[in-house]
């Protein structure tokens, strides 16, 4: 094979190979917009994290502002200690509320941040004190059945199960 033809083909091969790696990095992996190394950490304690996973998104007003970095059980309080890495450039006030939410019925679990009115901002390593745990469907159903049994009492057979609860808030006594 002619040397210059060989050089040309190897050059074409290497160029499109590198172009493929760049395509994977930029178009598929979205390297430019999400920079993982830049950011600061926030902590929050939840009673129950439900199905939250590592690297789940942290969203404010639906915009992804960070990722969950670690999930641990606090041995003293028996609460889940979640560390989040927030992109630099986003700041949240000290009275921010962190809640664990689900996008859609079968969607991914994420942390939603609702910022408050405080003028002081959370710094690196800061702790979000106001948190709202994940809604566990089994507990909710259990609570509902318990309330229904308590309010229905002896007249449970009279009108079937479809009657609305007379006092849902006072059902548990």
């Amino acid at each position: 094979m002619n040397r210059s033809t060989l050089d040309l083909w190897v050059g074409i091969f290497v160029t499109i190979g590198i172009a493929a790696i760049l395509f994977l990095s930029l178009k598929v992996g979205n390297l430019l917009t999400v920079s993982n190394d830049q950011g600061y950490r926030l902590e929050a304690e939840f009673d129950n994290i439900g199905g939250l996973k590592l690297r789940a998104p942290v969203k404010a007003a639906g915009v992804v502002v960070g990722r969950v970095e670690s999930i641990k059980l606090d041995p003293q309080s028996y609460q889940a200690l979640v560390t989040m890495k927030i992109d630099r450039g986003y700041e949240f006030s000290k009275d921010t509320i962190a809640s664990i939410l689900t996008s859609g019925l079968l969607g991914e679990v994420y942390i939603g941040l609702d910022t408050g009115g405080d003028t002081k901002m959370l710094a690196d390593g800061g702790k979000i004190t106001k948190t709202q745990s994940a809604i566990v469907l089994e507990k909710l159903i259990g609570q509902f059945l318990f309330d229904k049994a308590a309010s229905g009492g002896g007249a449970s057979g009279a009108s079937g199960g479809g009657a609305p609860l007379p006092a849902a808030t006072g059902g548990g006594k």
Partner: protein
Amino acid sequence: MPASTVAMALRRVGHATITSVERLGFAARFSVAVLVHAPSALRRLQLTLREIYFSGVLSLVIILVSGLFVGMVLALQGYDVLTRYGANESLGVLVALSLVRELGPVVAGLLFASRAGSAITAEIGLMKTTEQLSAMEMMAVDPLARVVAPRFFGGILSMPLLAALFSTLGIFGAYLVGVRLIGIDAGSFWGNMQAAVDFRYDIVNGIIKSVVFGVAVSLIAVFEGYNARPTAEGVSTATTRTVVASSLSILALDFVLTVFMFRGLGV
């Protein structure tokens, strides 16, 4: 006589063990010798470029066509399952993650082993059979530097590029089937993919995998060729061994690498 039968069986086990340990030791010494000749492969860049042409450029067609078809089939099958759960916008995520993390490096590695690895083994084995390697040694040309090292490093350089091309063409094939043919929204196809694929965890790990597979396949190919018995039958056995051993080591290494790379991420 049962005692002599037992002794014979034990002798056979012992012989097999000694042979395989010897072979392992020879393979280890051979790998070190090839690595020592790395600078000479770079100094004689023209030889390495020639090998990149033979193992990389000539494998392009099979890699590109296979990637395209794997991507299109993944899109069809993935859509069929995902649509049962109403999650058909996640098709891009499914295809991109399976290609970048697993299928790209593994299938490209298997194709590379059978397309380029077997050719390298056959070529070096035939050189040994026709005593070209001995002739080089007579002329004070080290066959490890002149023949083996360029093929080894050409393979290592080609493999990651081929795997990246395989994944890219696969994603393009999935785009063709998912967006053009089935009619998934292009925005959610790319958007969900970009949200789910992480550069460090998915793409860099995929590239590391393909480099490891490239090293494994190239090393097995040059070793089997260099170690082949100098007969026609020996060359054919060595070629078969290359394909079998590199395919098995790709799959085994892939499992080990996946355990270390992706364990704990989806806890």
